[in-house]
């Protein structure tokens, strides 16, 4: 009799495709639609008083929608790359809500390390997937909690924010972010030479995209930079490993 302890199987997709996750994704999509519908109704009621014509409302909505097409496709490309690790419902839930690919991948990596495992390797069990999914989701929760708590406070005390040293609000968080990505990235380098190849290829590809974007004014490259870099890095790594 072969009894595997629950959760130690490496068949991630069995858990990652649980109906519960699909229900959550559907719920999330519905909630976003409902919020937008309520907001649009509220805008329609106040528009005449705010000197906003029906034409203005149509143009605003349409401008927002059209301008989002490019960034949405770019995000979808990156999301597709994450499907192999996390399965479709988890990726939809995470990318659909607050939590960019950069955050999700970092949080999942940190969570896997805390379990003594590595994402995508032999140690990537169902247990590790659940903890990684939890870590990714809790980030989204923290952002939302932060917004829920701070927005009413900021509404009341708008002036106080302006007295905070601008360097504190800009330099410190930016430095901290770079520190986080550098730390996680350098940890990847210690794993294998193929990890070094992937990291270097990705960094170089992004560097080239940003350079071309700046020099030749191709601003769409900034949007698509991450997706392109991921494709280049994976292709190079695939060629090197085969």
């Amino acid at each position, binding site marked *: 009799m072969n009894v595997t302890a629950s*959760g130690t199987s490496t068949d991630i997709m069995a*858990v990652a495709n*649980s109906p*519960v*996750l699909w229900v959550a994704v559907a719920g999330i999509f519905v*909630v976003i639609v409902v*919020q937008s519908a309520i907001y649009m109704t509220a*805008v329609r*009621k*106040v528009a005449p008083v705010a000197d*906003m014509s029906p034409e203005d409302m149509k143009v605003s909505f349409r*401008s*927002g*929608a059209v*301008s*989002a097409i490019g*960034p949405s496709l770019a*995000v979808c490309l990156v999301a*597709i*790359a994450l499907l*192999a690790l996390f399965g*479709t419902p988890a990726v939809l*839930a995470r990318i659909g809500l*607050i939590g*960019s690919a950069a*955050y999700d991948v*970092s949080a999942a990596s940190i*969570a896997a390390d805390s*379990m003594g495992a590595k*994402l995508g390797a032999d140690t990537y069990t169902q*247990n590790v997937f*659940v*903890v*990684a*999914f*939890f*870590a990714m989701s809790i980030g989204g929760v923290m952002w*939302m909690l932060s*917004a829920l708590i701070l927005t009413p406070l900021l509404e009341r005390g708008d002036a106080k*924010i302006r007295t905070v040293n601008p360097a504190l609000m800009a330099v410190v*968080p*930016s*430095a901290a*972010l*770079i520190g986080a*990505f*550098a*730390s996680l990235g350098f*940890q990847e380098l210690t794993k294998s030479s193929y*990890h070094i190849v*992937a990291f270097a290829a*990705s960094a*170089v590809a*992004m560097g080239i995209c940003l350079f071309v974007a700046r020099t030749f004014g191709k601003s769409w490259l900034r949007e698509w930079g991450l997706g392109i*870099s*991921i494709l280049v*890095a*994976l292709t190079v*790594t695939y060629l090197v*490993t085969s």
Partner: protein
Amino acid sequence: MTTDEAVTVSTGARELAEFDKTTSRWGRITMIVGLLLSIGAPLYLVFSGEVDVTAGQLWTAFAAVAGTFFIIWLVEPLTYFPILGPAAMYQAFMIGNIANKLLPAALIAQTNIGAKPGTKRAELAAVLAICGAAMVHLVSLAVFVGLLGTWLVSVIPTDIVTVTRSYILPSVLGAVLVQAIVSMKQPRATVVALLVAAIITFVVVPAMPSLALSSTAIAVIVTAVLAWFLRDKNDQSPAELATIE
């Protein structure tokens, strides 16, 4: 002022207040529902009995992630509030993709209707633009990731899927690191961050393996402190916040 004009003015104020009340109440309610759905899914898996995950493991993972990202969680709402306004905050921090999708959408809409920044018209344009962007966001995810993506992964040869699984992390981190460095435009802080991360990863952790789990959190906190004390006080140019949302 005639009675009619006085009535119009007070009606306008009432409707504006009504808008603020509706958006803050329903913005909060929908965000809380989104929050519960977001954490409900992984927690359900934990309690379903299909896997064997302890509360301790969850807390450990949470602590490690929080140590790394707590600054971002705190600063991003503070940074975006003056730009977005209260109503749009509940949209933006639920949907995400603020810097790359929602903010440009809001700004383009405001330009297209000629709304002056800071006016109610501008705020309403931003709200509607984000609604439009949110719809495109959902449709694109459903079609290109939900349908196309899932199909793609099922037909792509297994060895490519394996490479993707194994090396997606460094493939993302390399690009993201370069992007953050370039968009921040702060050479001094960049050098500090890279040096601290390198020293911790290649020197400190091998010498003290017990620190391995908190190494990223340590790198973040040390970098933040050093970046503050070593900042160029004479640099008057506005630093661009490198956000991940």
